[in-house]
């Protein structure tokens, strides 16, 4: 028994995870603030984002108009907050569709392999070869009238092959591990293996890809808005605000700076949170 005690001393005590850090919480706070702003935009004491005040056109940032006004006298602060609604809704909604379809298919294909995997993967790769942004532009140009739900649906479907590929690859690297076979010879059903063994192992990759995906989709919505293919003006979104302000960039740079800043900060925070979470929940990294 003495050898057991010796061995025991080599065993590391389970220790508390390192704290996530102040920057992480600042980012979470910022994202939360944006989301809350987006949800409660019409109850918050904001000015009407559509109200055109011709007595205060192109006003710089100040007390009355926090971020100033645009060339139609609309309050930019209110428009940035309202604009986040569209951006966040598109980002989250599209990714939910993408993951809702792509992730289960990817896991199933990687776990089952065989013909099912071969056919599905070929189809997905063919779809992947087609540039998603061109596809979304094409579909949205012809699918009138434009609506938020359609944009979410189209971008969501376009992201399915991408999510499929990431999740399938992640699952495949896990599915051949001995502990999956071990679970199987303990009598675990396929469903149990997928949900209890595979899912937790790919979750860290999934979550960080989800957050980065949301950020990418928000940029994509910006690009679509820039081309005039997102929600119809005058409804603000970060993308179409930047697009509209582009023409008056020299006279009133604030018009571009504030929505761009909002977009940048939001994306940066999402990426940072995704990255930090992945390393935090990676229990396979031995903390010696």
């Amino acid at each position, binding site marked *: 028994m003495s050898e057991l005690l010796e061995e*025991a001393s080599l065993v590391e005590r*389970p220790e508390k995870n390192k704290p996530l850090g102040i920057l992480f919480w600042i980012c979470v706070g910022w994202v939360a603030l944006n989301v809350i702003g987006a949800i409660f935009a019409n109850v918050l004491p904001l000015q009407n984002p559509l109200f055109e005040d011709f007595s205060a056109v192109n006003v710089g940032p100040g007390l009355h108009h926090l971020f100033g006004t645009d060339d139609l006298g609309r309050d930019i602060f209110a428009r940035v907050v309202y604009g986040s609604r569209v951006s966040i809704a598109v980002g989250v909604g599209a990714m939910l569709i993408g993951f809702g379809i792509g992730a289960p298919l990817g896991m199933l294909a990687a776990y089952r392999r065989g013909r099912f995997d071969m056919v599905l993967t070929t189809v997905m790769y063919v779809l992947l070869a087609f540039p998603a942004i061109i596809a979304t532009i094409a579909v949205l140009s012809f699918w009138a009238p434009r609506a938020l739900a359609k944009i979410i649906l189209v971008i969501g479907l376009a992201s399915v092959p991408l999510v499929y590929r990431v999740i399938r690859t992640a699952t495949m690297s896990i599915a051949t*591990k001995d502990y999956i076979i071990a679970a199987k010879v*303990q*009598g675990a*059903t396929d469903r149990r293996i997928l949900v209890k063994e595979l899912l937790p192992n790919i979750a860290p990759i999934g979550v960080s890809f989800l957050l980065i995906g949301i950020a990418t989709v928000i940029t994509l919505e910006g690009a679509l808005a820039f081309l005039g293919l997102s929600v119809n003006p005058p409804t603000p979104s970060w993308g179409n605000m930047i697009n509209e302000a582009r023409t008056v960039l020299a006279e009133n740079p604030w018009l571009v700076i504030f929505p761009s800043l909002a977009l940048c900060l939001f994306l940066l925070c999402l990426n940072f949170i995704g990255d930090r979470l992945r390393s935090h929940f990676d229990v396979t990294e031995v903390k010696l």
Partner: protein
Amino acid sequence: MSTDNKLLVVKDLATVFSTAGGPLAAVGGVSFDLEQNETLGIVGESGSGKTVLSRTIMGLQPRSNVTVSGSAVLNGFEVVGASEKAKRQIWGTDVAMVFQDPMTSLNPVMRIGKQIDESLRVRQGMSRSAAKARAIELLELVGIPSPTQRYNAYPGQLSGGMRQRVVIAIALAGSPKLLMADEPTTGLDVTIQAQILNLLDELKDRLKMSVILVTHDLGVVATRTSRIIVMYAGRIVEMGSTRDVFQDHRMPYTRALLESSPKVANPSHTRLVAIPGRPPNLLKLSDGCSFAPRCAYATDRCRQERPELEPAGPAGHFFACWNPLPTTRGASPS
């Protein structure tokens, strides 16, 4: 001999992979049986088919490009040709497996207690608290100190030896009648190897199960098995009691294998004897004895005609060779 009290009866079992180069018989017609509460060693070089054999007996094959023929009856259940669903009934309760590398055979993101719990709760319908109590009991059984605390540990927090103990605890959760240990100590330090082997031995007696020990290390099987099967190129070339195989082997391959392991009694700087040549390409097997190209005793007959297993005298001792070594029964071991 009646087969009633046999735990495992394997007959003409063959596992053939269809590859781009043609059919590859990783296991080419193997027959043996296993008593209750017996430890059987399966030895052979890398690529001799011992791992494929053990996985075939468990009913674990890749889903495609493999054909299994023959029969393997485990505790009255025919494994060959059984559906996944049917095999799930024997997995865990009739047969369980200990894997080679404890670094990859535990789920890194699940607490070890949960991994033991799983099968207790799902298969045996235990309540959460009963399963936990049983899991802690099992951890204690396999010699994990302070099992109550370890229950909540992640595999990454344990050493290799400890992890292998956990793997064994998981395998024992379903009280299996047969424990299949495929190179259970290869991934471990030599000092830990002995501990794990002793543990398996002790558990075998305590829990009245049978153990199949698959290994390339003759030192591992020497003292802990009652019988040994020597495999070469997917076939059994010699089979017998551990004593017979070690001291009265008739097949030149068995001798070559024994000679190629270092002995403590040898003076230092003794050159280690290696088996000349390489294991055969399973795609290009001749009609003769697969060991013939590497065998010092090979004749034309060996190259043309495959020897079948024949009894060697003592009960249960068989070998497959046209030019067997003379019996050394009674001589002292080298």
